[in-house]
């Protein structure tokens, strides 16, 4: 029994790590702007395409940093163009803008790729096979959770221990008073988008190296699931998003192991409904009372 479950468990942990890297971007942006950044999943997909095109020209070890840099630039630009001008607008306007950006990015990707699936490059070493006990898997499956946890620890340390982290926490509670301290709100928000996009880019490299190709909509599903993970963990909470992502990744794959593959996606979204019904603040979410 265990032998049969083990490969699924491994890939569950791995997928969970990939969801976690995306989910952190959702939850951080929400924590500061109270905005669900619908474009985040598309930025993740765009990172996949950056890799496809850059890897044709450059060796992978140079391509990866460049992909990360481009993804960060994309996330930063989206915030500056589509969200910053709406800083004092009602929250609904910003959300609609986010949906707009999401479709814009998707359609741009259709346009550029001509709608054809593009082959994702094979990344040496992490695409190699490895045998653990009875399970044969790729190196990336083992690296993902380790890398995810290291990145999250680094992030939490930045937020708890550094000056910019302190500013982020202050801004997430009170824009106006943060400004009175001399904090530049816009730089803090940009930093948040930069961190979120950086993690999404790393997540994208790990995620797509499990697949052979990238299409413009392929990021939508992991993006949505990461969003569910962020809600499950309590949106705004980084540890919550990470734990939520691992739980979802593992559960999905256990369900597959039990032979109900068809239902693994349905499980995640059923979970979303259950959370929203019974514990809308999620595992670690703060209780917020809307300001009148």
């Amino acid at each position, binding site marked *: 029994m265990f032998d049969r479950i083990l490969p699924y468990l491994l890939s569950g942990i791995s997928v969970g790590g990939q969801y976690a890297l995306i989910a952190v971007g959702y939850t951080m942006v929400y924590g500061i702007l109270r905005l669900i950044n619908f474009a985040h999943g598309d930025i993740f997909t765009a990172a996949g395409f950056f890799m496809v095109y850059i890897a044709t020209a450059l060796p992978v070890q140079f391509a990866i940093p460049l992909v990360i840099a481009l993804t960060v630039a994309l996330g930063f630009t989206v915030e500056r163009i589509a969200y910053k001008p709406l800083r004092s607008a009602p929250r609904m306007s910003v959300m609609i803008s986010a949906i707009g950006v999401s479709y814009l990015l998707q359609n741009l990707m259709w346009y550029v790729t001509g709608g054809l699936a593009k082959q994702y490059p094979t990344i040496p070493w992490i695409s190699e096979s490895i045998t653990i006990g009875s399970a044969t898997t790729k190196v990336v499956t083992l690296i993902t959770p380790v890398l995810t946890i290291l990145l999250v620890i680094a992030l939490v340390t930045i937020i708890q221990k550094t000056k910019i982290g302190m500013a982020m926490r202050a801004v*997430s509670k009170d824009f106006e008073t943060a400004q*009175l301290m*001399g904090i530049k709100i816009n730089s803090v928000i940009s930093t948040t988008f930069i961190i979120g996009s950086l993690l999404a880019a790393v997540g994208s490299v790990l995620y797509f190296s499990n697949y052979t190709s990238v299409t413009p909509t392929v990021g939508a599903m992991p993006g949505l699931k990461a969003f569910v993970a962020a809600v499950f963990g309590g949106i705004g909470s980084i540890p919550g998003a990470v734990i939520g992502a691992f739980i979802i990744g593992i559960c999905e794959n256990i369900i597959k192991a039990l032979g109900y593959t068809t239902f693994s996606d349905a499980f995640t979204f059923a979970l979303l409904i259950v959370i929203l019904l019974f514990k809308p603040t999620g595992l670690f979410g703060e209780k917020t009372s809307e300001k009148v």
Partner: protein
Amino acid sequence: MIMLKVTDLKVNYSGIEALKGISFDVRQGQIVTLIGANGAGKSTTLRAISGLVKPSSGSINFMGRDITMLNPQRVVAEGVALVPEGRRVFPNLTVKENLKIGAYLRNDKDEIEDDIKDIYRRFPRLREREWQLAGTLSGGEQQMLAVGRAMMAKPKLLMMDEPSLGLAPLVVKDIFSIIRDLKSEGITILLIEQNANAALRCADFGFVMETGHITMTGAGSELLVNKAVKEAYLGSK
């Protein structure tokens, strides 16, 4: 010497004129108070000086520099700090972090540590609660923290918006004695209060505001005995 000069300041909130052209000066080393009823425009005045709201006309001059259109961060950098209404400490930051964030624009690490110690000497309660989240403090402690946080910016002018609001009478007394202490250390203070009595007692100079205008000016002691002020704001006949 005139430190802050506000000239014909007007502020509109979506069509409603909250300030209808007010002018006043704050002299260096003094405590100056704006008193008046709710909605008279007192908070708006401080918010406009801080850069949180942009005036529609008029000018604000601080130490010879025009700060009318500066962003809040720039105004703090010029040396004007605001203790906002309702204290607004960062509830998710510790007491010490709240003080550190008050010094956000400063880069002198060692001096910041010294200044934090100085704040702790002034408010020993804050030292006891150094590692507690500010959200867990009592109202009076939060007010001390809010004042301490503003002090960390080393302001030349400290503006306080209703520091006694919602505090127990004994704590209110503490707050006013802190204000006097700050003055004796050479800090200029612009104070807004609904507690007109206490404010005028410690103020060198006072302005009475009504619906966006300044209607009376005078030394604190003068206003305190002024018949009209007494009737309207001091609750005595």
